[in-house]
């Protein structure tokens, strides 16, 4: 049954991808990428990667689509047709596809317990997590402790993207928001989105907080939570207008979230060194190493959530304010 469902989803994925390539209407293409992400999320879910599915749904289908749309507001809706390179690009794609297929022939069957990936580090994580960290969600244990340095790196990727957008689009001058003409009133005059949307916003934010603090027990964690909360605020901005959203969560607060979140994560690492451990070795944070690990994970996940939420909203506002200017 799962096989049939996976086949169905993958077929839809291919169709959507072809439709994105063929469409010369950028608005359609953006909507299709959103669908693509949603299908991808479902695929990840079938493959038992619930955490990845949640991220893909929140970031890929949610925030990215909105940011694409705000970028689209600055440019034309239709793509200028360019002849050049289509054939070459098609050739490259075909060759790559053939190569990948060739490589996959000798791959271990999906879910084969004897596959190398299930024989080496994975059993160790499964066996040792209860002993060293004692949290039920092993994915969270791997991401935030065993490979916590990667996650720190990812937070700084998000940070780099955030300052990059600010640097290139230029920070908005202070006090500019107040003098903005009333054009950016969002969907204020549309009754149905108003009513439904208003009902949704608090629940989205609440769900985000749940995902944040429940990450040790179920799928989720800082990345997903940050993205979900950002989605909630973006929905608010779409309903009430960007200025209202900026009044509720001002730009300075967003920057403080980004810088504070990234620094909080890093600070935990430095504190670990000061207490005599290695960088990001949370065991030294408390006299009980297991509790130290849990404490460390809780703090760094909070840092991740803050940084991701702040960065996504900063990027959204940078594009949205440009689009109206």
């Amino acid at each position: 049954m799962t096989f049939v469902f996976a086949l169905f989803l993958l077929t839809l994925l291919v169709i959507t991808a072809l439709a994105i390539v063929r469409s010369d209407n950028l608005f359609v293409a953006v909507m299709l990428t959103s669908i693509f992400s949603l299908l991808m999320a479902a695929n990840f879910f079938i493959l038992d990667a619930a955490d990845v599915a949640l991220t893909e749904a929140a970031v890929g289908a949610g925030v990215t689509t909105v940011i694409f749309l705000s970028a689209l507001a600055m440019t034309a809706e239709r793509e200028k047709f360019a002849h050049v390179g289509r054939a070459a690009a098609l050739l490259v794609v075909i060759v790559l596809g053939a190569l990948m297929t060739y490589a996959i022939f000798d791959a271990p069957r999906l879910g084969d317990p004897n596959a190398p990936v299930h024989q080496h580090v994975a059993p160790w994580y499964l066996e040792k997590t209860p002993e060293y960290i004692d949290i039920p969600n092993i994915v969270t244990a791997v991401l935030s402790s065993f490979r916590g340095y990667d996650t720190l790196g990812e937070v700084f990727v998000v940070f780099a993207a955030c300052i990059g957008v600010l640097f290139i689009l230029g920070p908005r001058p202070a006090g500019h928001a107040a003098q903005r003409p009333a054009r950016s009133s969002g969907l204020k005059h549309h009754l149905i989105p108003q009513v439904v949307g208003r009902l949704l916003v608090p629940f989205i934010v609440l769900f985000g907080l749940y995902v944040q603090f429940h990450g040790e027990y179920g799928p989720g964690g800082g990345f997903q939570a940050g993205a979900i909360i950002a989605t909630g605020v973006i929905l608010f901005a779409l309903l009430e207008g960007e200025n209202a959203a900026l009044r509720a969560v001002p730009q300075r607060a967003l920057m403080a979230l980004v810088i504070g979140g990234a620094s909080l994560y890093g600070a935990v690492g430095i504190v670990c060194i000061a207490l005599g451990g290695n960088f990001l070795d949370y065991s030294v944070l408390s006299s009980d190493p297991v509790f130290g690990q849990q404490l460390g994970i809780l703090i760094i996940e909070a840092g991740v959530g803050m940084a991701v939420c702040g960065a996504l909203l900063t990027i959204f506002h940078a594009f949205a304010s440009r689009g109206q200017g």
Partner: protein
Amino acid sequence: MDLTPHLPALQVVVPMLAAPLIVLLKPRGLAWAGATAVAMLSFCIAIAMTIDVLQGKVFTYQMGGWAAPYGIELSVDAFSAVLLLVVSGAGALGMLAAHASVDQQIELERQPLFYSAWLLAMAGLIGIVVSADAFNIFVFMEISSLASYVLIAGGPDRRALPSVFKYLIMGTIGATFYLIGVGLVYMMTGTLNLADMEVRIQEVTELNPLLVAAGFITIGLALKAAVFPLHVWLPNAYTHAPHMVTMFLAACGTKVAIYVLIRFDFLVFQSALPGHSTQFASFLMPLAILGIVVASAVAVFEGHLKRLLGTSSVAQIGYIVLGASFLSAAGLSASVTHIFNHALAKGGLFLAVACLACHYRDLRLSQLAGAAKTMPWTAAALVICGLSLIGVPGTAGFISKWLLINAAMAQDNYSVLLVAVILLSSLMAVAYVWRIVETLYFGSTDNVAADGATDIIREAPLPLLLVTWLVALANIGFGFFPQLPISLSSGAASVLLGQLP
């Protein structure tokens, strides 16, 4: 508290964690001062580790206290030490010199973001160099790439935007290819740690996925490293970037990708795939030779100073790849020495370009005629670094060319051809460096639109000029006393070929 065992981690973490704090330093000059202090600190850490590495020590560090392969491991050996010196040196000296040039090119309120991105680019490149984990390398590749796109696009030159977009697309494809390759290797070995990969890959029986993985990783990293013919993004990106950014990236940006390519291929694939070393050599050697010849020839006819030097970088990358494709200890150490020496020469040249740009807005050669009269010190430093780029005896460039020619002579096949290529391209380097010298010293100043009179001496701001001269003198210093790069690079060669140092 003894911080020595923590140095590999601090090397990355210090510039990375400082980056968000720099954004907060709004008042004039403070962001620059903070970033410079951090970059210098990072350079000092690199020097401290190099001193230990020279005595035969190999640093390893377990992130989070988790042993490899379960956690992420950092390691610093002779090969990494060379790259660390180059990256942190270019970052720190660039920062030290940057103030005047950045003031001229970037608005005051955007400067904290610029310096923050600079530190992130540094941290990303350093993070790649010290990492011993294939996926961790990818994460830091993302940081360094994003930060360098931002730095390139940030200048006043709007033409930077299309060139950076091209770079972004190609760079992303390169990084994705690398990730696909790593994914395939992970599928077959179940590990991400490079040393562990080297061991477990021996037991893999189906070799096709590994072969495809090697292809993806090689092409992906060659894209990032601008190996001919995948270099098309490089000349425009270097030309339109802010001058200090060009200097920083030209000195170390592409070399880090070559570092990962060489390390991955020699340590992981060549031990597992039968005949892979020949494939590696026969794939990369022709590309390197073509790159050296074609890019040098193009540079001879290039009319814009920055694009000329950028194009010459493609040829110099060719030398580095050529040395590695010899597969011998001599070839590898020539290659690694050239990474060091080319960073000195090209870094110095682009510093001199930044000096020139203080008074000459338009850097086309036709507009720079007679610049040596107004900026004699800058022009002299440019000549010294130019001589080093050519490989004139007495400069650092000579050492690596000499090692490369020796390594080429020791090859069984085509050794005459290889030496001929190296000599021919050096002659072409003479030609394009001479074109610069001719314009600066003997060009007629009649139709030049310099702002102000042309015969008054108006040098670049002192800090910029001093750093330029420091690098120029280092080109001569390492020409006469090449022990440091040579001993590090022979150590690197023995690490790569699996011998005890």
